[in-house]
């Protein structure tokens, strides 16, 4: 009988052990820590967090997921959220949390370090890094002279079958939000309809880059760092391609801002303030600039440098960061049958 019951007991013991694990892990909570809900690239924030801990002795507990996952988690958790700090890749998710009134206003000393166009006037959060929209093109398929002067041109029938993009997730949404803020609903609707007709949809900017490099599609809409990172590694997925920056205040030169904010109901408010202070300081920004990430740093004291086209030369359009409306963007993308 004992022998027969063994599978059952094994399962029970394993189950008990597995249930006990999270409890043990929860015991590690202590006052000298800060809980960061992180939607930025994990490797990057780990580097920043390690330097922060080395400097202050404050332990950083990272919870990594995507922009909307985390924003909605914070909304669901409400005032009882364990989050002290929220970091995103793109700003619309920050706006979601700000509109729910869950952010604490940041220290003016922190805000002053970041140029005003990379943070909302409310001071509820700030940008700490940025990425530029670019058109990556296969140099065998498209001549430099034939490149479009505006991202809106990609909706033109002459680009049919020659453009790819990754519509799911926060990256592309932020670009559409930029177009929407600059050109209005009607123009955005037409543009999306054109893109749908002309384009191939992939899941992820890396996949878009690879497809352009393979010649599966001639051009692709991505953020700049995907290309630069691949070039720094081995160029495996980008050696047949080059980047086209739209510039000239075109919607295609839109810069998306990665945001950082402090949760008003966090249990470690002081530590959170220290973390934001470090993240935006010249020291913290230099870590981002020196990392593999190749995203733009925003504190002018620690520019990105490297071989990336400098932030100052991008000539982005003027978009008020708090005008980015993600609800309408999703509606328009659904209307265009992209989602």
């Amino acid at each position, binding site marked *: *009988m004992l022998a*027969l*019951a*063994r*599978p*059952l007991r094994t*399962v*029970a013991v*394993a*189950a008990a*052990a*597995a*249930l006990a*694990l*999270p409890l043990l892990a929860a015991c590690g909570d202590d006052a000298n820590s800060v809980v960061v*809900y992180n939607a930025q690239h994990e490797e990057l924030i780990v580097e920043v967090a390690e330097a922060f801990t080395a400097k202050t002795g404050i332990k950083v507990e*990272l*919870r*990594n*997921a*995507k922009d*909307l*996952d*985390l924003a*909605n*988690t914070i909304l*669901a*958790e*409400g005032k*009882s959220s364990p989050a002290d700090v929220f970091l995103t890749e793109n700003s619309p998710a920050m706006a979601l949390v700000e509109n729910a009134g869950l952010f604490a206003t940041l220290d003016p000393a922190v805000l002053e370090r970041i140029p005003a166009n990379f943070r909302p006037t409310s001071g509820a959060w700030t940008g700490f890094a940025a990425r530029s929209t670019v058109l990556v093109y296969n140099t065998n398929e498209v001549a430099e002279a034939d490149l479009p002067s505006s991202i809106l041109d990609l909706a033109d029938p002459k680009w049919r079958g020659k453009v790819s993009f990754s*519509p*799911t*997730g*926060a990256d592309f*949404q932020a670009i559409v939000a930029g177009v929407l803020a600059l050109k209005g609903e009607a123009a955005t609707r037409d543009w999306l309809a054109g893109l749908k007709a002309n384009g*191939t*949809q*992939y*899941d*992820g900017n*890396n*996949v878009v*880059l*690879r*497809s352009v490099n*393979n010649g*599966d599609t001639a051009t692709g809409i991505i953020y700049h760092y995907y290309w630069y990172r691949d070039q720094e*590694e*081995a160029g*495996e*997925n980008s050696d047949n391609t080059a980047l086209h920056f739209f510039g000239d205040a075109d919607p295609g030169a839109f810069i998306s801002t990665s945001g950082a904010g402090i949760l008003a109901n966090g249990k470690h408010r002081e530590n959170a303030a220290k973390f934001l202070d470090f993240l935006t300081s010249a020291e913290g920004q230099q870590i981002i600039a020196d990392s593999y990430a190749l995203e733009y740093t925003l504190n002018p004291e620690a520019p990105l440098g490297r071989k990336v086209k400098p932030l100052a030369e991008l000539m982005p359009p003027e978009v008020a960061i708090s005008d980015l409306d993600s609800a309408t963007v*999703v509606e328009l*993308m*659904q*209307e265009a*049958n*992209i*989602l």
Partner: protein
Amino acid sequence: MMATAVRRRASPLLLTGVVIVALTLIPLGHIVVATVAMGPGELGPLLWRPRVGELLGNTLKLLVATVLITTAIGVGAAVLVSRTDLIGRGWWHALLSAPLAVPAFVNSYGWVSLTSEVQSYAGAVLVVSLSYYPLVYLPVVAGLATLEAAPEEVARSLGRSRVSAFLSAALPRLLPAVLGGALLVGLHVLAEFGALQLLAYPTFTTAIYGQYLSAFSSDAGTVLSGVLVLLCVLLLLGELIARGRRRLVRVGRGTGRRPEPLELGRWTPVALLALVGLVALALGVPLYALAHWMVVGSSTEFPVSELTSALFSTLGLAAVGAALTVLMAMPLAWLVVRRRSAASTLLERSAYIANALPGIVVALALITISIRVVPALYQTVPVLLVAYAILFLPRALVSVRSSLEHAPVVLDEVARSLGESSWRTFRRVTLPLVSPGIGAGAALVFLAISTELTATLLLSPIGTDTLATKFWANSSSVKYGAAAPYALLLILAALPATVMLARQARPREGAR
């Protein structure tokens, strides 16, 4: 007096069964309620839009092609292995079953990482068919193993050729196995997310995920889920109708004689070539890709601590999930076997409906419900475990039920008559008898959870990574090398269940 006593004793059990089944019906109920609540004004524009038509076209195109191809491959391979004089048939059986151990999304990763040519309709059909043909092959092999010689011999004595006798007398009797396998393929294709996402082939499942990423839990996502579930239900009904009322009975006693194997003769090289080709495509390509990326991939690294932490959270979730699922299956199985009534049959049937629910639908429904109704549970392990239980309850139920059917109720009655309490009878008599079935059910669920991607991706608490989600994070961002170690562990996790299934459906030796 006696009757009321029995009924009173049975009712808490029935109540438990109702609660369990109600839990498994939450996602379906949510979709129905949410869709109805939307009203035609909102529902109309979300449902009657070109995107839905496009997804429907894509999904059906893929469904029809893969079902036909997997059926052809599965039946063909099964006949070759079971009914011919092919050499090394035991080895072929192992090799032909093995692709089941490569999760479809790992297989796609193998193909996509070698050539982007497969990111097309034809590519999706090819890769998905190669992943799922064992779902037809295995039941047909099992079906062929039970066939006896007599009907075919009668057909031959009436002047039919060997092949014609096989086609007319044996094949119809395989129909339930073929249909069952084809149905499984269909349900898998409808639920498949990871493979199709990597193959850049949009279907309802991938579109629902896109909705989730862009708009979180939105009405549009719910509507797409509703259409997908409808497709699954139609597929189930279609299979029921195709199976029809035909009865397959054997008249006569004793052990049936095995049919003589068909001699392949000069067709032997063709058959061998076909099987070699099939195994090379279905097993060779993904394994080659895996080996390639393990050895030469530039992003290959062995982050031992990340690997082990993903491994442990996978094992932990699978263990608890399997225990929970089996615990839920037990009262249901008991009701069906020992307290058979209209109500208990209805409960069991309802529990099987979950079989038709794709992981993405269950996950999205649980997200929406937890965030709106019980925000405290959103992004927690319990919700993920509930999703696993809903998805895999049918697998546990089948095992527990069949072992309970083989535990004679008379033994319980003897124990009771000797003065044992009902609890002690259950513990000392029934439980030992059914524990192999419970163990098998738990093992099946354990393995299913350890390679589950879709629901885990959406529901795993922040900071909890499983092998599947880690693999996904890497492979979907084109870090093929970094994904390789996880792919390897996933294959190892899927291997035991594959061996178990392949052994259950072993071709029998023909009479020689």
